[in-house]
């Protein structure tokens, strides 16, 4: 019976792709969205079935893929990844209905979008190496098509797609190697075979497989230093696609690490998890730092994705470390925290990217230094962005806070019981967590304050209007979910605990309880998010009433009177006098000068008549990715240099090519014998 769900997910996706490619422009987006919704609903149904019962959905057929066949299994771990993907996909595709008129209604895009969503939904269903890799590749290719949507208009989109294509395939190669190695040694390509045999493999093989998988999946999750494609591709992809990539696709990188590390290999020694933690610390710090100093709205959001994936990796690493040193309770809390952070990140990052897409539609730019004053012009989009920003800045009463709190509790209770290495790495993790938290707050105050508040900094921003109703509803639904999950985390926590138990291969044990106040079972930690929110709301109400009473009693002037702000005695104040995103981030840029090493360039040209008068000052500053500049660029230049050298081998002479073939054959024969 439950097989119907799986078939429906796949079939609806394929139908959507066909209709999206075949129908005329007036109806193709509508059809694609409708079928994507069917696909999402079916996947959601399957996930809820799995999570609410101990039933596991399995399906196996040899009809689709030749040689290997398709094996499908949905267990609680996969189901918890399906849920946020389908929610973000439903919101983003609904949003797409309004966005389509702004350059996202081509045949290729309408056909790629349903396939992209469906392949993402089906990746957690895959239960054999071949099925997994095919779906993984389909996800990469369809998203690549979506990144390329704007390539005819923007050079940057083309270059972003190139980076994405190369990095995602390098990652896929690492994953392929890891899984093939694993299945070769385990003697079977279905995940259940691998699971049964993986424990008896030599530690060298297990370690190699884990490191390869970590690299491959880490690059998909945007872990530093494999992140370079992410700020480019996520920024250049059109609105709904970028929300899907940043809100849903990156999760699958985390899924892959949990799948290989926890499920297939069944956990590992301390050094694996130290590696995961180090990767997480690097991603979190680096992402937060670049988010705080970036002035491109979507690039900022993309770096913040790296940052959040880093936090999830820290939680995963902590869970592994506690588990390896024999502390199941704290290991379970850290795993639950990792999955909760993942779910929360999907929701608020989806909302933020959809709001950023709306800003791009309304103003034609993503440059924060050209925005401003949008809260008055686009009130709904503004509120959605504000809610998302407060969530990502882990402020109560929004959902980001709950995950962060849970992670802090896990680290706090796990710390005293561990060995020296674990203590050192966990202390570093806490310090990272704290510093990234502060930087993220600064980054999102900047994004909201410069982008949406104050006075508009360009004509485009002045002329901005609120976007279509479907776009507002799609983004608003995710923002509302941020608040709901922040008030009642128990809506998802039981499901997450079941998934965490399945990932750590222990019997389902409850970690948290309580609908109103969240208790950590077995430890002293209680949080009452809804009471906190109620307290805040009633306090605000009291303050407003007091302010009104004081006013009414005292005078008869209008309560609020709009005036020109104070300009140090000047009458004229222009929008250019405001702080920009660049100036807002400048103090932080200066504090972290040694890390980011921005390039600054100051040109002062004097008047010809007198050197005491200045004609023009040009100040340029750029903080492009330092890892890209110092590692990837030299590497690319090196490859190009070797390519140039290799060209001299080719001079068009057929005789010479035959000689190459002969020499190669001789070498092979010698090597074989």
């Amino acid at each position, binding site marked *: 019976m439950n097989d119907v769900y799986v078939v429906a997910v796949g079939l609806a996706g394929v139908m959507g792709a066909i209709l999206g490619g075949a129908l005329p422009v007036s109806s193709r987006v509508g059809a694609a969205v409708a079928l994507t919704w069917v696909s999402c609903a079916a996947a959601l149904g399957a996930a809820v079935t799995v999570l609410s019962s101990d039933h596991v959905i399995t399906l196996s057929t040899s009809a689709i893929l030749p040689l290997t066949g398709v094996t499908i299994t949905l267990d609680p771990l996969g189901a918890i990844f399906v849920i946020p993907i389908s929610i973000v996909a439903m919101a983003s595709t609904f949003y797409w209905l309004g966005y389509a008129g702004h350059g996202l209604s081509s045949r290729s895009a309408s056909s790629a979008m349903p396939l992209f969503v469906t392949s993402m939904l089906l990746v957690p269903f895959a239960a054999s190496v071949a099925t997994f890799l095919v779906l993984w590749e389909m996800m990469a290719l369809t998203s690549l098509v979506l990144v390329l949507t704007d390539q005819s208009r923007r050079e940057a989109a083309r270059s972003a797609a190139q980076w994405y294509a190369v990095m995602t395939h390098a990652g896929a190669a690492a994953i392929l190697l890891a899984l093939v190695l694993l299945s070769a040694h385990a003697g079977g390509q279905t995940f259940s075979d691998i699971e049964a045999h993986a424990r008896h493999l030599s530690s060298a093989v297990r370690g190699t497989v884990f490191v390869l998988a970590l690299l491959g999946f880490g690059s998909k999750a945007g872990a530093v230093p494999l992140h370079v494609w992410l700020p480019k591709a996520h920024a250049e992809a059109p609105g709904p696609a970028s929300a899907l990539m940043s809100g849903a696709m990156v999760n699958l990188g985390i899924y892959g690490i949990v799948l290989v590390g926890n499920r297939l290999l069944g956990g590992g020694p301390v050094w694996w998890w130290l590696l995961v933690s180090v990767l997480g610390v690097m991603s979190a710090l680096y992402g937060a730092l670049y988010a705080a100093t970036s002035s491109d709205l979507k690039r900022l959001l993309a770096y913040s994705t790296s940052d959040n994936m880093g936090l999830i990796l820290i939680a995963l690493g902590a869970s592994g470390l506690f588990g390896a040193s024999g502390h199941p309770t704290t290991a379970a809390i850290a795993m639950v925290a990792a999955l909760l952070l993942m779910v929360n990140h999907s929701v608020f990052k989806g909302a933020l990217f959809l709001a950023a897409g709306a800003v791009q539609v309304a103003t034609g730019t993503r440059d924060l230094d050209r925005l401003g004053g949008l809260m008055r012009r686009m009130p709904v989009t503004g509120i959605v962005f504000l809610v998302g920003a407060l969530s990502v800045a882990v402020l109560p009463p929004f959902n980001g806070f709950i995950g962060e*709190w849970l992670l802090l509790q896990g680290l706090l209770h796990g710390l*005293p019981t561990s060995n020296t290495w674990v203590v050192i790495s966990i202390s570093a993790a806490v310090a990272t967590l704290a510093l990234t938290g502060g930087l993220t707050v600064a980054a999102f*105050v900047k994004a909201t304050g410069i982008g949406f508040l104050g006075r508009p900094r360009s004509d485009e921003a002045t002329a901005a209007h609120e976007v279509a109703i479907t776009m507002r509803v799609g983004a608003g639904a995710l923002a509302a979910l941020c608040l709901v999950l922040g008030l009642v985390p128990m809506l998802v926590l039981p499901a997450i605990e079941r998934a965490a138990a399945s990932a750590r291969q222990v019997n389902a044990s409850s970690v948290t309880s309580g609908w109103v106040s969240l208790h950590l079972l077995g430890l002293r930690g209680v949080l009452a998010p809804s009471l906190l929110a109620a*307290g805040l709301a009633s306090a605000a109400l009291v303050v407003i009433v007091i302010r009104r009473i004081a006013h009414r009693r005292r005078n008869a002037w209008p309560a*609020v009177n709009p005036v*020109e702000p*104070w300009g140090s005695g000047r009458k004229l104040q222009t929008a250019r006098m405001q702080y920009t995103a660049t100036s807002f981030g400048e103090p932080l840029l200066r504090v972290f000068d040694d890390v980011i090493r921005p390039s600054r360039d100051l040109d002062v040209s004097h008047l010809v008549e007198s050197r005491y008068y200045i004609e023009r000052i040009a100040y340029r500053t750029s903080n492009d990715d330092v890892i890209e500049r110092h590692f990837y660029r030299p590497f690319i230049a090196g490859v190009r240099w070797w390519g140039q050298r290799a060209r001299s081998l080719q001079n068009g002479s057929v005789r010479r090519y035959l000689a190459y073939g002969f020499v190669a054959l001789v070498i092979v024969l010698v090597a074989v014998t």
Partner: protein
Amino acid sequence: MNQFAHFMTQVLVAVVQVFAVAVGGPLLLGLMRKVRSRLEGRVGAPIHQPLLDVRKLFAKQRMRPRESSWVFGAAPVVLVATVVAVAAVSPLATTHPPLGQSSDFFAVVFVLLLGSVVLALGALDTGTAFGGMGSSRSMTIGALCEPALLVAILAMAISARTSNLPALVRVGLAHPAVIASPARILALSSFLVVILAESGRLPVDNPSTHLELTMIHEAMVLEYSGADLGLIIVGESMRLVFLLGLLVNLLVPWGVAERPGVLFFCVGLFALLAKVAVAGVMIAIFEVFTAKMRLFRLPELLAGGFVLALLGAVTAVVAR
């Protein structure tokens, strides 16, 4: 009936705590200004002058910059609401505050952070250079404060095995040795650095300056007037009293009510006010002899605070 009486007592405790913080805040400002004036050889305004100022401000007209949105008006309300919410449930006068079980140190810190963030957004909403300047600087300082603050809390929480605030205070009462432990001393000194930075006191920010190039906090609130400005003054001073109240209760918890009862609660309340007043006077004396630091020297101070906290956390782990 018994349950109802219990509920009403809890509400009363919350209201009294909030009221004490709300009135104590402006009074503490007045006290600190008075101490400063006397040390500088001036008579100074009376201690209750800030309360009079706030009353005057509440009678004045509120104005807002032309291009601002609803965020500008909401910021002072949210600022005060955050402090009110945490003051109601924190162990200030008693170790059994209402909802004390869920009064978590991390939650309290993040709620207060919400107030600062909304105020920084309100400053950006003015659309002036001053607002942006203050907002950018205060967010920079906030970003550098947060590591020190969180690790300091962690250091205290590790030795108490919980981040629950009342429990942290009770541990100090039950085992005075915990307070003298290096972990807690290091963590509390880091906490003090953060309090000074977050509430805009010297050497981070000069609360009595309006010089464009140096001001941080005053630049943020430059456009506020009338009741909004009054709310901001109350909110900021409440925050200072609240944070100092937590600090003194973690450092010298004696006097705080451990048992239910009106008498115990009153003693706890007076002990709290006396301890906070002493702390305020000490800060005021310190401020007389201190010059404001350059903005770009601040990371050194805050990094120092962070290192103290980290040392505290490490000693807490080692000591176990």
